């Protein structure tokens, strides 16, 4: 069994999600009695492999999850894939997977390009590290869901404005529901991004005070990109509140959600391809046991 689980690779679940996405896309081309079941089966298979992969790493790698950029991206992809499955099963006529699975695949792609080296941490910093990573994860998931709802709102509004009847097998949720999801997601994304950034500052301060780990400077690319994302998300949340009682409010929020996803994607690309000191072990590496021993010393 352990041999089987250890043999699961990123390609296994990425391929399953890819096939599920192809099934979903084929809704636009032809009708099929078994497509829905096939699509759910492929997402389920991908999710099972994805879960086993993350579980295996959690057991065999120190400090996982959220302690490496690689695991962070995969966990974000896992959450969105689970959300996609749940929404597909609860709304079988709505092609949610067509919108969510590409983001899942992009996150898996980003994981492949990111570092698998764990962030150096002690017991104290591990707690702050999980809080920091968890809030950033929640923010990214909220941005993704909001953008999907925003895009669906624009498609549905376009169809209603053209006075066209819905395409068979391609029914969108109501504008009311989509507007609700996208406006909530923008606000949640801003709050969680702020909490993620704040906990990052605390984490950095703890590292600096202990003098055991190298700290991340303010002009580090990761700090700059997260600050940019935070500023944008806060501005988007404020803007969404300002237009809430205007007739064009839902359309504005839909666009804000989409731009938020673009900013997030830019931020991720920046983080993947630009060198950073975020999560890089200091010169003269100190492992976790040494740090804990040092913390326990009088």
């Amino acid at each position, binding site marked *: 069994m352990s041999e089987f689980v250890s043999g699961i690779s990123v390609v296994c679940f990425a391929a399953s999600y890819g096939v599920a996405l192809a099934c979903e896309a084929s809704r636009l081309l032809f009708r099929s009695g078994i497509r829905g079941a096939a699509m759910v089966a492929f997402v389920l298979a991908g999710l099972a492999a994805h879960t086993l992969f993350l579980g295996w790493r959690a057991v065999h790698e120190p400090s996982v999850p959220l302690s490496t950029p690689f695991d962070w991206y995969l966990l974000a992809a896992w959450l969105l894939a689970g959300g996609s499955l749940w929404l597909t099963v609860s709304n079988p006529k709505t092609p949610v997977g067509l919108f969510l699975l590409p983001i899942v695949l992009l996150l898996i792609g980003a994981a492949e390009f990111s570092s698998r080296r764990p962030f150096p941490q002690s017991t104290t910093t591990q707690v702050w590290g999980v809080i920091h990573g968890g809030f950033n994860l929640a923010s990214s998931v909220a941005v993704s869901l909001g953008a999907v709802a925003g895009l669906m709102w624009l498609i549905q509004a376009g169809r209603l404005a053209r*006075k066209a*009847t819905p395409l068979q097998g391609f029914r*969108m949720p*109501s504008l009311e*529901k989509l507007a609700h999801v996208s406006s909530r997601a923008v606000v949640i994304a801003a709050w969680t991004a702020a909490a993620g950034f704040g906990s990052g500052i605390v984490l950095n301060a703890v590292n600096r005070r202990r003098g055991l780990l190298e700290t991340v400077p303010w002009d580090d690319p990761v700090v700059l990109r997260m600050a940019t994302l935070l500023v944008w998300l806060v501005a988007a949340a404020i803007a969404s509140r300002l*237009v809430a009682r205007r*007739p064009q*409010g839902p359309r504005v929020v839909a666009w804000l959600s989409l731009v938020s996803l673009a900013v997030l994607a830019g931020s991720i690309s920046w983080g993947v391809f630009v060198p950073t000191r975020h999560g890089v072990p200091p010169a003269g590496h100190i492992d976790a046991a040494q740090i804990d021993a040092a913390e326990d010393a009088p």
Partner: protein
Amino acid sequence: MTLALVGASHRTVPLDMRERLAFSAEQAVEAIQRYRSRFPGREVVLLSTCNRVELYTAGEDDAPPPNAEQLVGFLAECRGLDVGDLSGVFQRQVDRAVVRHLFGVASGLDSMVLGEPQIISQVKQAWAMARERESTGPLMTEMFQAALRTAKRVNHETTLGRERLSIPSVAVADFARGVFERFDDKRVLLLGSGKMAAETLRYLRAAGAEDVVVLNRNPQRAAELARRLGGVPVDWREIDRELVAADLVVSTTAANIPVVTEQRYAGIEQARGGRPLVVLDLAVPRDFEPSIGRRAGVWLYSIDDLAAACEANRRKRQREIPAATAIVEEETQQFMTVLHHRHTNPVIEQLRAGWNETGEAELDRLFRRLPDLDESARREIRQAFDRYAAKLLHPPLASLRDESRAGPPHGLLNALKRLFDLED
């Protein structure tokens, strides 16, 4: 086994004749009972709807169903009509054509409104009524079960009956539901008292709408309409206030000029607080200026917009006809193969019985010659004999099954009877 059908439908007979031919539920029961006593041993189902009257009958070879003239005479007698008046009224079909026709009818392919779903329950009711009167046997049971299965397949595998065709249903299901998730927290404003308002409101009620306000220039008419439709009558002078409070407007006034101009709407827009407004303008001339529909948050649909959507849906249904017909053909073929194969059962049983008898006799003789064989060895030998017989029988049985696809395999059956000396 023979199947026969005489029937008249909207395709062949005008409404006045269909009215004269139609059976009420009681009359249908009476007709079935009369048929049972007139033609004992035959199966019958009577399907009578506003668009068709069809008598399905079946009988075995020794008691075939009545011929078409007898059936037409029977229907004329039941409805008190002169047979001469029914000349050319009824279509007559036998065997495969009957099966194909019933499967098409049950699937909505033969309905006046293509793909309409009520026909399935009407077919079910007709079959249930015949079963209760014990006028159905195995053949009718299988045929109607197969018809319902076919209808289910058509419904599942095509969109024949899914697209909406009436203006109120399209307005609510395809457009209003695209804007609003729920209706129980929405206010519906009825402007005017046009006929389509009540029908649209029926769909809105089904979707959950509870809060309905009725505005009419004539207060008495507003009160009467509100009472009838379960709404609250409001003075016409309150129209601006009600437009602010409304989430969905159904407008059917007889006004010659727009009741709500863009200027008027602009005056109340801010007070609406950005809430979306769906307007179903079913009046001719229109009650809302079309330019209002270009404003943010307003989803305005005129009667022409909705009629165009209905027409688009009708075309979508038409495009499904080939797929639905293919399913009907496939199910008909499958049913007829089973039916024809049934002709072969007595011959197959005789053949099997003869071979088993011979086999048993040979085994007895063998076991007498070899008395020392233990039970296990005897079982092995017996099983080998059975396998041998089954393998020898397989090719002729497979040929019979293949031949049944095209029709009753009389030639093969006669050959088998002669070759193996089977009784007729």
